[in-house]
Each structure stands twice: as C-alpha cells, then as structure tokens.
C-alpha cells in the first residue's frame, strides 16, 4: 500500500521552487500535507527505511534528493533498513 499524502509530498518536490521552500522551512511545507503523526516524524527524522515501506521507490528517491541527501548515504540507509529485522517489521 502507498501512503497517499507522503507520496504527494514526494511528487510535489520534483519542482525546484518547492525544493527551495522545503529546504528553507521544512515544517511549514509539511503543514500543507495531512500526514499521519508517525509519517511526519519519520520525514523529520530522515528515516529512509520507514518511508521506503510507504511510498513508491522512485518517489522516495526524488524526496531524498530534494531533501539534500547524497545518493551514497541514501543507498546506505536503504540497505541498512533492508538488513535490519526490527526495521523490516516496524511501521509496515
């Protein structure tokens, strides 16, 4: 299943102007999306493994690129999440 509003956030952040807004004031941009509290917390914590279970992988990549995370760190966090049995069962 996909979390619609998380996915919408990722989708919208393909626009460079919105990326600038997001990097300037992340909380203000998040306020525009009715995210579940645990999803918002995962976004604010850059919790790649948790968010990976909630949205499309391409959208996830767009999101973390917009958030400024280098590919190498993004990939490392994806792999750590995949090999962590606790992460694999949390938040489904």
């Amino acid at each position: 299943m996909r979390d619609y509003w998380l996915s919408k956030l990722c989708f919208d952040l393909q626009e460079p102007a919105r990326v600038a807004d997001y990097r300037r004031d992340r909380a203000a941009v998040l306020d525009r999306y009715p995210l579940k509290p645990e999803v918002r917390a995962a976004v604010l914590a850059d919790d790649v493994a948790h968010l990976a279970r909630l949205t499309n992988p391409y959208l996830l990549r767009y999101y973390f690129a917009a958030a400024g995370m280098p590919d190498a760190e993004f990939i490392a966090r994806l792999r750590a999440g995949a090999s962590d049995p606790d992460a694999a069962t949390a938040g489904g």
Partner: protein
Amino acid sequence: MAELVGVYAASHGPLIARDWHRLPDHLKQRLSAAYGELGRRITETGADVIVGLAPDHWTNFFLDNLPALCIGIGEEHGGPPEPFMRDFAPDPIPGDPALGRHILETALANGFEPALSYRLRLDHGLCLPLSRMTLSRMPRIVPMLINELEPPMLSYRRCLAWGRLLRSAIASYPAPARVAILATGGLSHSIGEPTMGAIDEDFDRRCIDALTRGEEGPLVDLLEHGAARAGNGAHEIRNWAVAHGAADCRGFELLDYLPAPDVYVGCAFAAWRV
C-alpha cells in the same frame, strides 16, 4: 499508406545527462557511439514520425490517476521538466495528432483500452535518447507512455500484443508517413530500492539473447519471472517487449551493451529486423 521504417531501443538514465561531465571518458565514448549510431540509422530511414515507447517518471501521472498506457494525440507535447534536461530542444515537441488518433482508434476497435492525452510532457525517458542521438531534424513524436513505475502493470505478453497492434495500426494508416518506433528504458537497474546501483548482467544478457533470436515464449517467461528481480527499473523492458511485437518478433541486432554502474543502468542499444 504509412510505412514502418525501423524499430529501435535505447536505455536512458538521468545521470547520463545530469552527471555527464563527471562520467569516465570510456563510458561517455561508448554511450555517445551507441546513441549516435541509432541517430544515424533513424536519420537514414527518413522517418518523419517516431512512436516513442517510454515510461512516465511521475511527470504526467500520479497515484490519483495512473493509466496503464496513454497515447499522446496532441499537436505538440511539453518538453522535459527536469532541470538537468533544460538544454533539450525543441520545446514544445511537435506531435502527430492524426497518427496518434489512428493508433488510439485502432486499439479501441481491437480490444485494447488506452488512455489519451492532448498534452503530455515528455521527460528524460524519451528526451534523453532523442537528444543524445543528435538527429539531423526532430521528427514528429507520438508518445505511448506505459506505467512501469507503480504495480500492477501490463503483462509482458500483453506488451507483445500491443506491439502487434501498433504494427497493424501503422500499416493501416492511410496517409503517407515514414514511421519509426523507439523504445526506451531498461535493462536491469534499481531506483530507490536497497539494490540501487546493482546491475544484473546475467539477466540482461539472457534478455538480449532472447530478443536477438526473435523468441516470443521464452522471452515472455524470462521477463514475467525474472524482470522484477532485476530491479524496479527493469519494468521498463515492457517498452522493448512492445517494440519486439511491433517488429513481429523477428529479432534484433544488438548495437551495444554496457553494464554501467556509474549511471546505475544496464545500458543496451538495439535495432530490430523489420
């Protein structure tokens, strides 16, 4: 009457544009040679229309409206929105509404149910190969965008059937037109998954072997059972399957294959026997 003058395929990847200046020289040379050879061949055919088979990278569609396949029947299409494609020209891109509509109507008359759009934006999936091919002139484009990002998706057998449908639609188009088909995407790659950066060279080579031999059943078996394990980017091989069907499964000439971790993609380039 229209004539199918060629069927081609080329991989794409954002890093081939965004990080071009950082790629190793040998990789840039191989990629440039492969795209250039495709461009030379398409130019030689005198194609005035290209039917472009490509994924939509969350450019036109989202989870609230996601067609399995959409045909662009507009007079023009928007150019790529990605910042790393800002030098792509022309924008807008000329369409061919009459041919697009003919393909759409032929599909609907034969048990296929595509969506339609009068204004698509064509992202790097189609525009990157078009730009790297350095065509002497830009043909009109009829895009056929296939959902290859969000499951469920068209089966590979259905993609072959779509290809045959496309071939018959071009053959029955009453106006004079020289039509080429360009499939983009694939082969193995993985985006936003733990395997991101991995390339399944063994899968790619088996896929290339089946396409080269002009197989149908073994190709479908390989793709239905193996593509999903070759990374989510391998879903784009659906475009190659449509092209294979359009070429009547006659097999192709591989122009180049290079597993390129620098751009995260198993890159392949091919021209079918039509």
